[in-house]
């Protein structure tokens, strides 16, 4: 939900609550006022009747003639009663509406020249329903205006006021650490936005600097390692040129192999770092069908030497948007894995479709937790002279391209499945 929508929603929820409470209060205030008004009018009337009685007016006759108020009752009492005023609500039958209506009745006892009178008057109260209706109507109008106002203000706020914020957001989205360009703060008239922009600038500057350092470190570490390895390798080669016993030769050969492994390890780690540093983001259209076809040809000799049989089921013209080097590394690693962890006279099955790549090979079941298969240095086959980074590299590439990878073992077949559009499944 957009910030502005959320803001409007909260504003409207609060408005509805406030209007509800306000309506409730309004109802009682209005009702109270109206009732009071009626009460005061009746009291006034009683006072007037009392006044007229004091003046000696005879209500009886007039009352009988019906010229007066039908709702006014004046009764002369046989004994003297202390003056008292009683106000109460009653229900009175309404002829025209044919129903009981709430009425206010004011009764008073008054003594005029030693004669006590009972004066009572009543009249219809304004109905509660009517007040409620009026209040609700008013509140709906107010609510309507509030909604229009809130949306109007929302548009202005999101359009004008939040413009610098949205710009900053867009620049953060566009930010690519490989460009090594920090997001420079732009001056705005809002202090909070200035703070944000300055913070973003500082942060991206630091990120760019750290990235540079990391990249340099990874490269330097690889470089620094390769030179001494190179020297050792050369020295061992020179050593083989001297007179050595077969035993000594074997030692030299073993050292050579270890050096080779060390060198590969450092290269693979450097590669992994590079992928993690997002150094391969320039995507290109890669024809995976051709890639697989060509590399299976390049590996043909090894396949034959290992006595393997390769079955392929490739869909024609499968294209992926991926860095060409990454596509190559991913495939080569997958394929080499299938060769390396195979059995004598084993088989490899490759299936390529528009949305997935599946490579299966015959092999012994893994004696390890397959959940950590893609972790670094997790080797399923300790006997094989591998460094345990191949699958990590594959996973890193898969991750970076938003593919999904899974591993399965069934009936002597290891299967690795890469889905190119996992979100659409």
């Amino acid at each position, binding site marked *: 939900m957009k910030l502005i929508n959320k803001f409007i929603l909260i504003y409207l929820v609060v408005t509805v609550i406030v209007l509800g409470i306000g309506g409730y209060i309004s109802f009682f205030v209005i009702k109270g006022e109206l009732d009071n008004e009626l009460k005061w009018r009746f009291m006034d009337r009683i006072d007037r009747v009392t006044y007229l009685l004091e003046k000696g007016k005879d209500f009886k006759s007039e009352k009988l003639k019906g010229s007066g108020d039908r709702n006014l009752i004046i009764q002369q009492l046989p004994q003297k009663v202390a003056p008292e005023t009683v106000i109460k609500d009653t229900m009175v039958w309404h002829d025209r509406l044919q129903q009981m209506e709430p009425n206010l009745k004011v009764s008073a006892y008054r003594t005029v020249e030693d004669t006590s009178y009972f004066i009572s008057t009543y009249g219809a109260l304004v109905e509660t329903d009517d007040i409620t209706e009026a209040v609700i109507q008013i509140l709906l109008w107010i609510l309507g205006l509030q909604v229009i106002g809130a949306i109007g203000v929302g548009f202005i706020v999101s359009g004008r006021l939040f413009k610098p914020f949205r710009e900053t957001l867009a620049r953060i989205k566009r930010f690519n650490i490989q460009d090594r360009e920090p997001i420079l703060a732009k001056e705005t008239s809002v202090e909070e936005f200035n703070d944000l922009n300055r913070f973003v600038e500082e942060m991206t500057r630091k990120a760019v600097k750290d990235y540079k350092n990391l990249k340099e470190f990874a490269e330097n570490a690889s470089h620094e390692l390769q030179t001494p390895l*190179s020297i050792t*390798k050369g020295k061992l*080669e020179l050593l083989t040129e001297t007179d050595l016993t077969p035993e000594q030769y074997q030692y030299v050969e073993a050292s050579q192999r270890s050096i080779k492994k060390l060198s590969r390890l450092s290269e693979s780690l450097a590669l992994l770092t590079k992928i993690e540093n997002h150094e391969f983001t320039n995507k290109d259209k890669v024809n995976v069908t051709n890639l697989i076809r060509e590399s299976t040809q390049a590996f043909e000799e090894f396949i034959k030497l290992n006595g393997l049989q390769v079955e392929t089921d490739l869909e024609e013209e499968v294209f992926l948007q991926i860095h060409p080097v990454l596509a190559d590394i991913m495939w080569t690693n997958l394929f080499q894995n299938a060769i390396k962890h195979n059995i004598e006279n084993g088989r490899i099955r490759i299936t390529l479709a528009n949305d997935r790549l599946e490579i299966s090979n015959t092999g012994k079941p893994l004696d390890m937790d397959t959940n950590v298969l893609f972790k670094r240095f997790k080797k399923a086959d300790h006997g094989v002279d591998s460094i345990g980074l191949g699958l990590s590299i594959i996973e890193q590439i898969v991750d970076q391209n938003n593919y999904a990878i899974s591993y399965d073992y069934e009936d002597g077949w290891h299967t690795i499945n890469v889905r190119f559009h996992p979100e659409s499944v």
Partner: protein
Amino acid sequence: MKLLIIEDNEDLLQNIRTYLKREGYICEFARDYRVAFDKVMSYTYDVVLIDIMIPGGSGLQVLRELKSVNPQTGTIIISAKNALDDKVKGLELGADDYITKPFQLPELHARIKAVNRRNQRDGREIINVNEIAINTDTMEVTVNGTAVDLTPKEYDLILYFASNKNHVLSKQTIAEHLWGDYVDHLTNLDFVYQHIKNLRKKLEKAGAQNYIESVYGIGYKFKVNNRP
């Protein structure tokens, strides 16, 4: 052949010099940018080996300057970085080859020879080892004038041997030369033996001597007594 080795690491320099000296090459060396610059500007070399990271500047800069004065000089970049962009940049600047540390001395030697061959345009594309002649232009091998039908891998192998005569070449070295990094994924190097056996058979059938000598079952040596 006159070589210039631009390399700041003393041990590495010694390795290369020791290996190449036996071939009777004249090896000069430069340990930093300034010396390297002076040398490439003042003298001409057949092949220059350039390490990218050298004190005082970049090997790529030396390459650029060398190519501006002596474009015909063969150049090989030695780099610790297996970085594609460095490789591309180096080759774009006119380097003839690119070798990544840690390299093998026989491999470096084979490449120096190949680069030198390419740059000599006076009919020296034929390498003679007594009765064997290797035409690097047409990729044909003849023994006493009779053509020998070799597979591409076997051709690579004989060329590699001829480039590293009288050196012990281990199975690992040979495998890496023929198959590059693919070798990493093979535990068994017996297939090297298969290729050598086939090559030996073909050469002997064509009437050549058996120059390929097994060394303690560890590696092989292309033994030629009288150098041409």
